[in-house]
């Protein structure tokens, strides 16, 4: 009887261990959430910056105008969450065609569309309109253009040529959230910069 009692865990001991594991998990999950949120925000910023840089390279390298289109995503938090590049077809400069797939931001992130956080979207040179996107049908979009010289058709004031990626629950707020990625484009030389808090 003595041997049996000392060689096994009692129910109370097991319960204590399970409780400790549970406590640790409860503490760790928000931290994990923070980390995954941070990496998806970084990734979202990179996706937008990469698309801008690619558009600039296409415009300079192929000597043609390239449109950067921000594509609307419906869902739990609707907003502009995709980027696609469009350029004139080689044999017909009046018809624009996509030259890349739509790059969607990671789930949980979206581009803010108010004029404080994303003046580039609020005052976009391609105004908000509807267009047919291959594989998606009629979708709302807006955007701007890269010129063949590497510059853009945006306003002359660099400080207002940027988009901000935020978590989707911050999408409609105008005060600065604690996690965001700002992607700025220089309208003259097309230089792309990313700011993270």
């Amino acid at each position, binding site marked *: 009887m*003595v*041997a*049996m009692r*000392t*060689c096994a865990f009692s129910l109370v001991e097991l319960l204590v261990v399970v409780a400790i594991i549970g406590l640790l998990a409860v503490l760790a999950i928000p931290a994990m959430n923070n980390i995954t949120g941070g990496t998806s925000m970084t990734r979202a910023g990179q996706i937008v910056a990469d698309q801008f840089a690619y558009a600039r390279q296409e415009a*300079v390298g192929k000597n043609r105008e390239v449109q950067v289109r921000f594509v609307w995503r419906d869902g739990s938090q609707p907003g502009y969450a995709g980027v696609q590049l469009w350029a004139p077809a080689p044999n017909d400069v009046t018809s624009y065609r996509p030259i890349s797939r739509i790059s969607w931001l990671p789930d949980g992130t979206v581009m803010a569309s108010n004029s*404080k*956080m994303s*003046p580039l979207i609020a005052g976009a040179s391609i105004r908000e309109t509807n267009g047919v996107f291959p594989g998606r049908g009629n979708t709302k979009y807006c955007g701007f253009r890269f010129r063949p*010289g*590497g*510059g853009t*058709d945006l*306003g*002359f004031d*660099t*400080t*207002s040529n*940027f988009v*901000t990626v935020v978590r989707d629950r911050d999408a409609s707020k105008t005060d*600065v959230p604690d996690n965001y990625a*700002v992607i*700025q484009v*220089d309208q*003259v*030389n*097309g*230089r792309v910069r990313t*700011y993270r*808090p």
Partner: protein
Amino acid sequence: MRFKWQPADRQATHPAAFTLLEVLAAVTLLAMILVMTGSIISSSSRAWRQANAKIETFQDARAAFDVMTARLSRATLNTYWDYYDSSRKPFRLSSSPSTFVPDQYGRYSDLHFLCGPASSLITGMPPGISAVATQAIFFIAPTGLSSNADYSALPGLLSACGYFVAFGDDDASKPGFLSTPSRYRWRLMELSAPAEKLSVFTSSSGDSWATTPLSQGQVRAVAENVIALIVWPRLSTQDDAAGTQISDDYTYDSRTADAWSGTPPRQPAQAHQLPPNLQLTLVVIDEISAKRIDKGQAPPAEITAALAGLFANDVTQYASDLKKLQDRLADKNIGFRVFSTTVSLRESKWSP
């Protein structure tokens, strides 16, 4: 119940369990393993970040170099032939007297091209800029750049352009709502004034068309961590191996004040014409080093010391100056890269 390895005599007093010593040893071992994996992960992630930062800095600089060479190659002067009188004043100026007596033919241009030491060309610093280094270049090119949307369909509009290397903050270009601290770096800056502000036609002398928009802050950063820009106007290497025929001190001014010389009198070579080639050199340091030597508002002493006395006024010293700069940066353990190319100016019709 009893394990085989337990000594029989201890069974009664010592039931099967870990001793304190065993638990301590296990915990210590676990901690050691954790610390080791942690340090491996952190060092590898640091290495990855550093490599990434290095690549990004140089990518930025390379893209900027492409923009710069593309724009420079379109520099224009629109030179034409004009009468000059015996005091070497051109005819087609509003100040020409009605008694103008032509004496010679000569080149003339209403536009201007100049390069030389940044510290002497840039008299009024743009806001946020506290120091300039090495050389600067100012020219006029058909950029079509305009702040007025009505002019956006005129891609040939002339505007004032220029490049120089400057130290300062990034407050003027930072997105509106950001409150991140100012970032003080050496940067390759671009003068890009809108076409409707081009004032080169208002005066036939001086360089206020470039220095005025510059001091008003019509500049933008093209690349970060660029510490030196060397502009060397020269003939092609086949025609001029030493590179001293056009300019022996890196300076070039198409509105030169040099006198005509010889019989028959000839204009100074630099007057109202573009140099055929520009040899451009950029020295870029990596972001890791820049962060390490960052002193806030004051330009880092390491860079100032590394550039001291180099590329001043003797093009024949170019190679040895560049070698010195590389040695000094390497001494200070600063990672760097040198970009160099020769740009042909398309509009240049050089005649000596």
